[in-house]
């Protein structure tokens, strides 16, 4: 699926944040699969996701409601969520 450069940049930054916060090894922002299921495949749990959400809130100056956490299952979905939140400001 084609994606614009803004979304690409978000994908890369979100991957960086996840790698950094979860101290993941053997993966880089370039090799991080944005379609990977973070819960089923990466094994992250609610506390990890809450931490990532707080860092993303700082980064993009948005609110991620805790009820929305279950929607954030992949880097791709996180990025689309962020894009939707910041879109009205552009």
């Amino acid at each position, binding site marked *: 699926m084609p994606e614009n450069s803004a979304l690409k940049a978000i994908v890369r930054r979100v991957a960086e944040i996840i790698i950094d916060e979860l101290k993941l090894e053997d993966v880089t922002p370039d090799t991080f699969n944005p379609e990977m299921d973070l*819960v089923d495949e990466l*094994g992250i*749990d*609610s*506390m*990890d*996701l*809450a*931490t990532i*959400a*707080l*860092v993303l*809130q*700082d980064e993009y*100056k*948005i*609110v*991620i*409601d*805790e009820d929305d*956490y*279950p929607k954030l*299952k992949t880097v791709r979905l996180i990025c689309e969520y962020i894009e939707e*939140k910041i879109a*009205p*400001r552009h």
Partner: protein
Amino acid sequence: MTMNRPKTVRSDQTKFKDLLARPEVRARWEKVRRYFFLRESTYDMTNRCNIRCDGCYYYEGDKPFAAENCSPEDWRSLMRAEKARGITYVVLAGAEPSLAPDLLAVCYAEMPLGCIATNGLKKIPATVGYKIHISVWGNDATSFKTRSAKNLLKKQIENYRNDPRAVFVYTFTRDNIGEARDVAAELVAAGCKMTFNVFSSPVGYAGPLRHNAESLLKTRETMMALLSRYPAQVLFSAYNAVAHTSDRGLNDLYRCSYPRCNPSQDIGLGRSFRQYRTDLNWDRSAACCVPDTDCADCRHYAAGSAVVTARLYRHAGDPDTFASWLDYVDTYLAVWAMGYEKGENLCNKIIHPPRAAAG
């Protein structure tokens, strides 16, 4: 243009990185987050008990009628299957796990992190390296009245004096608040660590142990006084006292995330938590850490340890609230995780639980 700015923009709250700016807060955050991998389930070990207590949640509902599976190999298989589905922490409870020492040994061999809830009458072998929570419901006279056990506190102390696994859990009921100071003094003199629980009524229970607004207030005052007097021996914080003695129960304050109250199976406890009965079966619709407790009256320390901790997001709104949450998690880990040492509390103010829409 920023007019018509959506409410999704976070502009009026402290940034998360700013909450972590104080070195002692950052250090505590890094200390507690190393334990975010803990994923619990609970297991009834036997339907036998060597005492019978008023208001015991285990003997409510149909749990005690489940057959006992005493096969060590079946338990070993269960523990391996639990590990395979991501469980990293076991809570061994009902009715009295010390009566099944061979099963405790099997569990410990397969799953090294966990906790045993016991009345403390029978010592659990030192080779089982789980945390051990010893239930205390008042002084010996009260224990005899409500639990039909003679010299219970003395026996508990004899068994677990200076045992690094042991945490004595004083359950405040409506009628034992005044005894807590003497019991705490006795425990502290014996080198024991203690924490606090608040009696949470089983479904349908309307007996004399059930709290009311006045008893909750007195309980909070007593908790705070004991925390102030014995800060090294009492594993607790001001925010623990607030969370567990509010007139609103934990579910009302924090929205309980155990399956019994939480239909979502996407992530967290709703996805992974199970409460196994003695026949090694489980029922999602009944699954929580204290099944058959009246959810509206639940202020149980075990429930709070998961439910309050899980609400990181809503406590990340201002420095005092975040520090209070860190104190709560620090307490939870000191009570539940072997080798975790509690730090000094970061916030001694009374902070009210934030509402869900804090963001």
